[in-house]
Structures are given as structure tokens and as C-alpha cells.
């Protein structure tokens, strides 16, 4: 077939019943404790069962406390959270679904454990009641977030009725400067394209700057595709992908590995494929990025200053910027580096993997954070935590004055008790700087792990380069 995009190629293979709205098969259904209890309850009261419990995998991440290691009857933070964890355990037991509960060795943020186990493979369809399911697109899978009613539908039928997404090609050209990370790259793309650029589409990221990224970097990029408004993002698999997958727990082995590989190598867009939208961004000149507003598109370079809304031509954009600056307590013209920071959070499904922790630790090694700063690092999974400890990274963090926590979503969404107090300012490696995202009244600046570490040392927004 010619002129076919990667998205269409994968979509075609998953059509159960084409129609005005296609019915597609779902290869993997990931579940967390927040968006699924109502779905299980509805199934139960309708007398329905889970069709393919073997294609579901669940973990506890949003509600879990990060101050203790779990297990041994460790308490969840509050009654509501505890109840969700309990319901999840019961639902998974009853349905026969693999669950990684609090305190278990495979537990972690749902979008960290899927790839780490090798569950996330090229060409698959993956859903989860969570918008950042887009993360799994890094492997060349169609992976997107769904609502609870759709979770219920997938549990009952292992299919989803949904319109075929339109496609958008985001070509990222250039070679980034040293110290510029995948997070900076994707923030720069969103700042340029806007938070609505991808609405209604599935974005294929391509170009030299994407090819050059590791799998973990690609996950960071696809994770944030939703912040550009897209349903999801994906990247065609290549040798980097296959190297990552080879030997993982759930990766195919032996002859099946060879067969899978043969198929995976066909998963790309044709050279003359036609996309509904196309954008090209050159990232060779970008510096580390920092958000200044209340959506991820309101982002600028760490070398820049807080923008002046009065200079914005579009009245809606000006209005949004004024509102954002008021919420953020910022004055136009202030140099980004002059913004003092109270809290530094390294974690979330965007930036909590080994490469993120190693990079942050490298910046911190042998240094102490500013006395005005409280800083915490929350590994994305129990496995990441163990490996980081085996490499001694925990000691680097704690020696620098960071708190070394147990895995979970933590301060990314602030429902497990890890919140930013009203009015305080947080440099965060997470993905959303929405009003109140890290707690009511919290002010969030989105950054890379390196920038977060440098900021913790300086006490104000700073780039890792500033330290040498």
C-alpha cells in the first residue's frame, strides 16, 4: 500500500468492524485505581464480565503514598485513596487481572511500568483511562487515553468504538545543543505549535532530532503530545526501539522475536504518505525551556524573560496570558532566572526514568540545594528505584538535600498528599502547569530534570550550564 501513514497502517490491522465510527480491537488495556472503579461497578451491576483479563494490566499509582515503601500494611494517605486501592485489588482479583499493588516489586506509574516490562510493543493498540497513555506511542503503538465509560466498554468487549483520528506530522529537525533534553524539545514544539495544534489528530513525531533520542527521551516527547491537544503521539520504531525491547520480561523470544521484528520493521509511514496537517520545527538553536503560565504552551527559554501580554496581537491570547500571569504572580519583563523557587519535584510519567534520574544526579553530585528550597525525587517505578539505588543515585540525591521517595504519581497531580501549598512556586518535571494541578493555588514551572536539579541548587530558575 502506498501513501499510507503509520497511524492508518496500525489502525487497519485493528479494525474489527469498519463503520461510520470504527470498532477497533485493543491489544492492551492498562488500568489504574482512579479511573476504573466506576467501570468495574457498572459491569458488575449489568451482570457482565471482563472479556480478556489477560489483556489487562493494573497498577496503583495516583493515590499511593511516597513516604513509605508500602507493603507490611502501610497506610494509604486517606480514606478515599485507601478505598480505591482496596476496590482495585478486589476488582482485579475477581476478574483475574494482573495487578501491581502498592509495595510490590513491579509497581509504578502505569506509563512507566508498561514499557519497562516490555508490554508496550510496536504496532499495538493500547488504552488506559488516563490521557498520558500517549507515552506508549514512543514504541510505534497507537496509545491513547479514554474516559471511564470507555474503560467499561473495553473491559467488556476488548474493543472500542471510535472515529479514526486524523493524522498530523510533526517533523523535528536539527541537532540540539548540549544540555538540551527531550523535555526541552517537546516544550519548545508545544510553545511554537500551540496547545490546540493537535486537536482531533494523532501526531507522528519524525525527523532527525527525534531519531537521535533514546527510548526514554521518545517517551517524554510522546507523553506530552496530549499537551499540544493531540489524542496521542507516536514514533515509528527503529533499531533504538528494538534494542530497548530485546530481552524484556514480556518481549517475544526466539522465533517469535524474529517474526515480531519482521513485522515491526514494516511499521512506518510511506515516504509519500499524506497527513492531514504538517508542522516542521527546527530545534538546533533552542535553550532549556521553562513554562511561565498555566498551560504548557506558555513556555519560553530559560534565557528569556516573562513575556508582556500587552505585546500580544491576538486578544484571546493576551487575555489568557494576563490571567496566567496573575495566577502565577509574575511581572512581565522579569528574567526567568530571577524567579525564586520554593519546591523542586523530579518525577511523573514524563521524567522519572533512569536517564532522568541519572541526569539530575549528575548536576547535583557533590553539591547542596539552596536552603530556601524543598526538593523531592520520586522514581517512576519500584524497578527504577531499585536500579537507581544500585547505582548509588539515591545517595547523591539525599546528600544534596533531596528527599528520596517511593514510586507513584505524587506531586504531578497531588492527590496522594504530596502537594504544593497555595502560592508556593514549584519547578516540576511533570507535564501540566494548570491552575491548581499540584494543589490548590500552586504555581508550577515545567522543566527538564537537569533544569530542576540546577534550580534546586540555585534557589531560582536556572540551567545546568549555569553551574560550571
Amino acid at each position, binding site marked *: 500500500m502506498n501513501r499510507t501513514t503509520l497511524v492508518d497502517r496500525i489502525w487497519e490491522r485493528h479494525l474489527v468492524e469498519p463503520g461510520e465510527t470504527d*470498532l477497533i480491537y485493543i491489544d492492551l488495556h492498562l488500568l489504574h485505581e482512579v479511573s476504573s472503579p466506576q467501570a468495574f461497578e457498572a459491569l458488575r451491576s449489568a451482570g457482565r464480565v471482563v472479556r480478556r483479563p489477560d489483556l489487562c494490566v493494573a497498577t496503583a499509582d495516583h493515590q499511593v503514598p511516597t513516604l513509605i515503601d508500602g507493603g507490611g500494611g502501610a497506610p494509604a494517605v486517606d480514606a478515599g485513596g485507601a478505598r480505591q486501592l482496596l476496590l482495585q485489588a478486589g476488582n482485579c482479583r475477581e476478574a483475574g487481572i494482573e495487578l501491581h499493588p502498592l509495595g510490590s516489586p513491579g509497581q509504578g506509574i502505569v506509563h512507566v511500568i508498561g514499557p519497562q516490562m516490555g508490554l508496550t510493543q510496536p504496532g499495538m493498540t493500547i488504552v488506559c483511562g488516563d490521557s498520558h497513555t500517549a507515552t506508549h506511542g514512543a514504541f510505534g503503538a497507537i496509545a491513547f487515553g479514554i474516559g471511564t465509560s470507555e474503560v467499561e466498554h473495553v473491559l467488556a468487549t476488548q474493543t472500542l468504538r471510535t472515529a479514526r483520528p486524523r493524522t498530523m506530522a510533526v517533523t523535528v529537525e536539527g541537532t540540539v545543543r548540549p544540555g538540551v533534553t527531550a523535555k526541552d524539545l517537546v516544550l519548545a514544539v508545544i510553545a511554537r505549535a500551540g496547545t490546540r495544534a493537535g486537536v482531533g489528530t494523532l501526531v507522528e513525531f519524525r525527523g532527525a532530532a527525534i531519531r537521535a533520542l533514546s527510548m526514554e527521551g521518545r517517551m517524554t516527547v510522546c507523553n506530552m503530545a496530549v499537551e499540544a491537544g493531540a489524542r496521542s503521539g507516536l514514533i515509528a520504531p527503529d533499531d533504538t526501539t528494538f534494542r530497548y525491547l530485546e530481552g524484556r520480561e514480556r518481549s517475544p523470544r526466539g522465533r517469535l522475536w524474529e517474526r515480531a521484528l519482521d513485522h515491526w520493521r514494516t511499521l512506518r509511514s510511506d515516504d509519500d504518505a499524506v497527513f492531514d496537517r504538517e508542522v516542521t520545527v527546527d530545534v538546533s538553536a533552542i535553550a532549556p525551556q521553562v513554562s511561565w503560565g498555566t498551560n504548557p504552551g506558555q513556555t519560553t527559554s530559560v534565557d528569556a524573560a516573562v513575556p508582556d501580554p500587552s505585546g500580544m496581537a491576538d486578544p484571546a491570547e493576551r487575555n489568557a496570558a494576563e490571567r496566567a500571569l496573575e495566577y502565577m504572580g509574575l511581572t512581565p519583563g522579569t528574567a526567568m532566572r530571577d524567579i525564586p523557587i520554593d519546591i523542586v519535584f523530579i518525577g511523573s510519567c514524563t521524567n522519572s526514568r533512569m536517564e532522568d534520574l541519572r541526569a539530575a544526579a549528575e548536576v547535583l553530585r557533590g553539591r547542596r540545594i539552596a536552603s530556601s528550597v524543598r526538593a523531592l525525587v520520586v522514581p517512576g517505578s519500584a524497578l527504577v528505584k531499585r536500579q537507581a539505588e544500585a547505582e548509588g543515585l539515591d545517595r547523591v540525591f539525599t546528600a544534596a538535600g533531596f528527599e528520596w521517595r517511593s514510586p507513584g504519581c505524587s506531586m504531578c497531580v497531588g492527590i496522594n498528599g504530596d502537594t504544593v501549598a497555595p502560592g508556593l512556586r514549584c519547578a516540576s518535571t511533570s507535564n501540566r502547569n494548570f491552575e491548581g494541578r499540584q494543589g490548590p493555588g500552586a504555581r508550577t514551572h515545567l522543566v527538564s530534570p537537569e533544569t530542576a536539579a540546577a534550580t534546586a541548587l540555585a534557589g531560582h530558575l536556572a540551567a545546568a550550564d549555569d553551574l560550571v
Partner: protein
Amino acid sequence: MKPLTALTGRGMPLARADVDTDQIIPAAWLKKTTRTGYGEGLFSQWRQDPSFITNRPERRGATILVAGPNFGCGSSREHAAWALRDFGFTAVVAPGFGDIFRNNLPNAGLVPAQVSADVAESLLRATTRDPYAEIMIDVVGRTLGCPAAGVAGAPFRLDDLAHHRLVNGLELLDLALSLGPSISAYERARAPWLPVGQAGSPGAGSPSRTGAVKAEGTEGT
């Protein structure tokens, strides 16, 4: 669900762009495990301001939210749709919706009516001026009108699936009842290498049990 062919109600304007679902229902409300009881959580941060639109007495009883572009972006939480419904809204009219939220609204029985930027602007202006301005939504014909805004028969976008279900009062799963055979046929042809979960093996994912966990962050080095 009851079939929903037409509805009329007073419009409540919310002239902000990119209202994300964290604003519609803050995360603190995600502790609940029911599908109802979220009305109080709707815009709960913004509602602390006594002058916020939902707090104004003359706005009580409005059932159609008139919103700005990209309404409901961000998190997939269906709780946002439940909160709008529980507060008393039956439809949201906007020039654009977040992708997941657009699907969540009809699943909660609400009509997402996507209108042109011009119509949205007229509706926002009219409903801001007149708290009693009524909007008539013809779900079947996918058009709406608002005399106070001088809008009549304006088409709106509503996905075919949502349209079919709202008009006929069908739950998402109602459409799946006859699908068993085609799903089974599809399943027989799935690739043999695709991964499966390992329920009932406690410690799945544990390196000590499986011996097959690869060190993280080692690929390509």
C-alpha cells in the same frame, strides 16, 4: 439513558479559552468511586470567588454552558462530564472541545455542540448580556438557535456515534451486544507474539521471580 432529541435552556457563558478538566473538577474530587455526586466539585476552585458566574443568583437554573475554544482539554477524567451533569447542565456549546472530553460528555448524557467561532462569539455575547437568554438545541437535526443572539438554525458538529446514541438513548455498551462473533473472529487472527498479562502469579514483574527484567536505561549504550 432517555432519548434526547431536543432541548431548550438558558445559557451560561464562560468566556475562557483552554479550560482544562482540572479546572472543571479539581483532583481532590477524584477520591470518589461513584458516578454521581460531583455537582459541588464543578469549577470548585473558581467558585471560591463569589462573583464567579455560577455563584450569581440570576444565573441559577441555566442548563446550557456556553464555553470558549478547546473546552475540556487535559486529563481524561470523566468526572468532569459527571460534574457538569450533576450541577444541572444538559449541553455544552463551544467552538472546540478536548478530544477525550468530547467523547466523555455524551457518555454522561450531555450534548457536546461544536459551533463555529462566529456563532460561539454571538452566543457568548448574548448570554453575557442577558442571563435569561434561551438556547434551543435540535439534537436530531444538529442545529441550534438563540433569538437573543440573532442565531437561528446554526449547524453544530456532533460525532455520528454520539448523535446516534443521544437521539436513541443508547449506552455505549448497548451497541456492543451483537458483536461477540466478529470480535472472536478477530481474536483468532491476532499475532502470536503479542504480550499477555499474568494474573494470579504474585510478583509478576519482579526480577527475582522472572529473572528477565532488563536493567533500565541501558539500551543503546
